[in-house]
């Protein structure tokens, strides 16, 4: 029965593909094909149709190798998962209708054809969903790692003076990391003044402020001073509106000014020397 079905499909592949493309183009909200040049639509569609057809098997057990091949190639098309799902749906609908028209499917064998279709379509769909979600999980975890690598290192700039540039959004996890790196660095670098540069922090809300205050307090406990620099004017205003008290801090608008102040606090200064 499967053989008849495959033959029926293969013999009329052009017609099936044409109908499938038409139906995909009619899908509301899916503008995918509209951006694709026609010859590419034709080529990809044919490939998709062939991959679909190659997965019609004789037994109820799915052919894992074929399925993997299907998934791997379809994922490479770069379609959105919603689109792939629709593509599979529409393909099986078109094939079903076509086989009905050809009277290959009739009332007598409808039931067994239903089973064949189910055994054909379900594993493909599951495999696709699995591949996409694995890919997403991988992306998310890679980005998490990338974000952690971006997190906060304390840089010794001068003897006794270190800087920590903070870049990006500070969530609870990063805040912990910042605190650890800060304290560890202060001790190992024998820093007396630490400049926390928040130029690259997009939003300073109460949580971020709280973490900064706690970090400064901890730095003070290990015998150093913490200075907050890189406070953009709009951030200064929101900090004031939030009523956050930074009086215990030395604050400077720029890293440059902070550095000058830090040198002063450690009894040093940068002087210009005349060239001879």
């Amino acid at each position, binding site marked *: 029965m499967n053989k008849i079905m495959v033959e029926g499909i293969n013999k009329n592949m052009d017609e099936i593909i044409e109908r499938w493309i038409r139906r995909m183009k009619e899908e509301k909200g899916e503008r995918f094909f509209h951006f694709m040049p026609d010859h590419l639509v034709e080529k990809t569609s044919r490939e998709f149709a062939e991959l679909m057809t190659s997965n019609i098997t004789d037994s109820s057990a799915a052919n894992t190798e074929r399925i993997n091949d299907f998934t791997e190639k379809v994922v490479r098309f770069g379609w959105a998962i919603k689109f792939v799902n629709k593509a599979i749906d529409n393909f099986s609908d078109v094939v079903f209708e076509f086989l009905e028209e050809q009277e290959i499917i009739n009332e007598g064998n409808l039931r067994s054809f239903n089973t064949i279709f189910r055994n054909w379509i379900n594993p493909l769909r599951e495999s696709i969903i699995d591949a996409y979600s694995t890919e997403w999980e991988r992306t998310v975890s890679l980005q998490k790692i990338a974000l952690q690598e971006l997190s906060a290192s304390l840089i010794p700039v001068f003897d006794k003076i270190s800087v920590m540039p903070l870049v990006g959004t500070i969530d609870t996890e990063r805040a912990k990391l910042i605190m650890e790196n800060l304290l560890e660095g202060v001790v190992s670098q024998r820093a007396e003044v630490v400049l926390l540069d928040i130029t690259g922090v997009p939003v*300073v809300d109460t949580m971020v402020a*709280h973490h900064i205050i706690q970090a400064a307090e901890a730095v003070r406990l290990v015998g150093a001073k913490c200075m907050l620099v890189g406070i953009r004017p*709009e951030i200064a205003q929101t900090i004031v509106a*939030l009523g956050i008290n930074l009086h215990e801090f030395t604050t400077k608008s720029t890293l440059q000014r902070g550095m000058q102040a830090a040198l002063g606090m450690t009894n040093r200064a940068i002087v210009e020397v005349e060239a001879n």
Partner: protein
Amino acid sequence: MDLRSSVEIITEWDIVAARQLGRNEAKKAGFGTVDQARITTAISELARNIYLYAGKGKIEIERVTDNGKFGIKIIASDEGPGIPDLRKVMEDGFSTSGGLGAGMPGVKRLMDEFKVVSETGAGTTITTTKWLH
């Protein structure tokens, strides 16, 4: 024209999504950098409160007009435990979580209009607006 957009707050990263949306809307509405920062920070506070105290909820952002004035309205709503003592949470320094207790009174100062409706056991809705001057 759809003038309202919203972000569900379920994870800590949704807070970032909400304020990103707020910043974009504020920019589109013509607010300057200082007001953009105010609006974004207010959203950050409200979204974090939802995340911390209600577990989940949503932030809606809407363009509003009133007598020729233009503005942005933020609606933060949740079905969490509610706030038993509204007067207390509006005091600077009141926190049940060891925070600074600056969020709620801060949002009120950052924005132009501010209203809290809360019912114990049923949830909280905070509506706050910033006008373009």
